[in-house]
């Protein structure tokens, strides 16, 4: 257990095994769909965690990138005649480019100022998709053409389970590679102290930008996947509340923890399915659970449990 938590590559292996074996025990399509949504959210949270947990920068606007990915696969085929996969890549590139362009000025800010600036960026994207109703269907949303790969339509929860599961494993692999590299050390240096990192010769602005662009790319792909799975997109995919939800997932699971990103996403996606038994009390209970978790595990579920295990008899 201890080794597993400590060695990130073993973790990827374990993750791959879980993705591969889980369908064997999931009793119905409904569960497959829920787990696929967990993977998709985890992918976005993984990106966000790179920015928040490793580079120490807050974003309250990532739903903007999620939305760009989502609307790219909706609008690309309908208005530009692009195939779904090309729209997905186009959306990802657009998110990355946008992050690159706005990243420089925005990332000069820090703390709450950065939070508001990213939030503003997210709100602007959200306003465009919800106001340009002639193109996007406005608040009522629009249908997303099914993805066609090698001549066959990609539908069904199980297909998307595999696509999102494999992408998540690849994403985790990329993040692990990154944080084990000199880049990762630079991230951690920035996280601990920007000034100290700068003194040590780290090009702080460049690394922050890199984390921002990468997290935008991850989140954008997650957005594309989610609406391709649903076959439908609404401005919910760009909403400020989604940005907050992604941040809650990251913090709940544990900032700076890859496994934490997945656990955080899993809890916030799966929990509401259980809480339906509380009927009207659903939301009150969800709020209480978030509070209780963070009081007892303040550094997030995975890091806090890991340190408990490390401290206990191994």
């Amino acid at each position: 257990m201890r080794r597993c938590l400590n060695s990130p590559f073993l973790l990827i292996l374990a993750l791959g095994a879980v993705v591969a074996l889980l369908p064997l025990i999931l009793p119905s399509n409904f569960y497959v769909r829920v787990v696929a949504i967990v993977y998709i959210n985890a992918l976005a949270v993984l990106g966000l965690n790179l920015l928040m947990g490793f580079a120490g920068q807050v974003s309250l606007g990532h739903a903007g990138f999620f939305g760009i990915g989502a609307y790219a696969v909706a609008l690309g085929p309908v208005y530009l005649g692009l195939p779904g996969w090309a729209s997905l890549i186009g959306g990802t590139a657009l998110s990355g480019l946008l992050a690159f362009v706005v990243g420089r000025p925005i990332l000069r800010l820090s703390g709450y100022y950065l939070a508001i600036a990213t939030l503003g960026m997210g709100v602007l994207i959200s306003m465009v998709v919800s106001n340009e109703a002639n193109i996007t269907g406005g608040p009522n949303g629009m249908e997303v053409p099914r993805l066609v790969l090698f001549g066959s339509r990609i539908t069904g929860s199980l297909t998307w389970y595999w696509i999102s599961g494999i992408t998540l494993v690849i994403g985790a692999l990329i993040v692990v590679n990154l944080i084990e590299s000199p880049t990762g050390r630079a991230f951690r240096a920035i996280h601990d102290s920007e000034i100290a990192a700068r003194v040590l010769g780290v090009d702080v602005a460049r690394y922050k930008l890199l984390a921002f662009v990468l997290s935008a790319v991850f989140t954008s792909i997650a957005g594309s996947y989610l609406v391709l799975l649903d076959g439908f997109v609404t401005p919910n995919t760009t909403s400020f509340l989604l940005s907050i939800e992604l941040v809650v997932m990251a913090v709940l699971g544990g900032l700076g923890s890859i496994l934490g990103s997945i656990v955080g996403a899993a809890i916030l996606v799966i929990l509401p399915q259980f809480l339906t038994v509380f009927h009207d009390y659903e939301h009150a209970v969800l709020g209480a659970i978030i509070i209780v978790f963070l009081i007892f595990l303040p550094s997030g579920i995975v890091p806090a449990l890991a340190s408990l295990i490390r401290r206990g008899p191994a």
Partner: protein
Amino acid sequence: MTMIRRSLLIGAAAITAGLMTSVAYAADTVRIGSVLSITGPASFLGDPEKKTLEMYVRDLNAAGGVNGKKLELFIYDDGGDSNKARTFATRLVEEDKVDAVIAGSITGTSIAMRSVFEDAQTPYISLAGAAEIVTPVRKWVFKMPHTEPMSCGKIFEDLKKRKLTTIAMISGTDGWGKAMRAECVAMAPKEGIKVVKDEIYGAADSDMTPQLINIKNTPGVQAVINCGFGQGPAIVTRNYRQVGITVPLYQSHGVSSKSFINLAGPAANGIRLPAAALLVATQLADSDPLKKVALDYKTKFEKETGQPVSTFGGHARDALFMLIEAMKRAGSADKAKVRDEIEKTKGFIGTGGVINMSPTDHLGLDLTSFRMIEIKDGDWQLVQ
């Protein structure tokens, strides 16, 4: 601490109990599924819908159920989010194995769920407004409320009667406001009506005087239409009087609940809106077949919930009874048979009007089901 621990224990027990019931279900019930926006910005739609369904299912069961079987109701809250709605729709089909579905408080969630029920070949009755949900007609999909073309049409009809042809519009950014605005703007030229000013406000805004001043300063405006729902129309109405616009103001049936009048206060006086007869149940002629149905629902809902009746909950009632009647005619809850019977619904008297479904019309309402209503001294008044 002990309190927290106790509540955790209770939670764990409740979750276990919930899982048990969903596994050990009785196969001899008629299972009706529902996904509504019970919380979130559209909760004023989902909340009365949920209360209405629960109230009537309880009563129907007390009276023996349908075809000798009890009804079992599965209700989930999507919070207005279409992705959550679709997940719950999948759950209804895969886990709860429902026989029929009454779901979708808003257009976005209704459309997001549509293909799940189509794939599962389960009859699905939506409670959301936009005509888009059933145009073009889809085999398994039906819907209850009046649509935005009907709302625009009825208002234009009244405008022409009053010889008003130059109008301004002010619309909310909510789904309903946007959809109705687009429809009215598109329909106006065909009806000989000119839209000379077209303003927008945010669904959660608290002051619309700048937009209204711009309308006031536009020459020639003879009437104003406000498309939207939620608290927006109430604030528009108050600001309308505040800045002193005197031409007639029209609202849509998105405000057809008594709480609108309470919120807008005296400023609501003189406003006209097209809405279901339910709002003016007591004023209907005794010969009107809608009177008894509307009055019964109004009395029952207000007595049981302590809240004023709205047409939104009324649509949930209509959907449930239309479904139950179809099940009775089909003699079972067989999905295909029930679907066929819903499509054959003729002369069904609901709170929203008389419904006549057909293979080419899965809404079944026409303009005659709409009444033009004027607000007078804090109450609805039928415009004759």
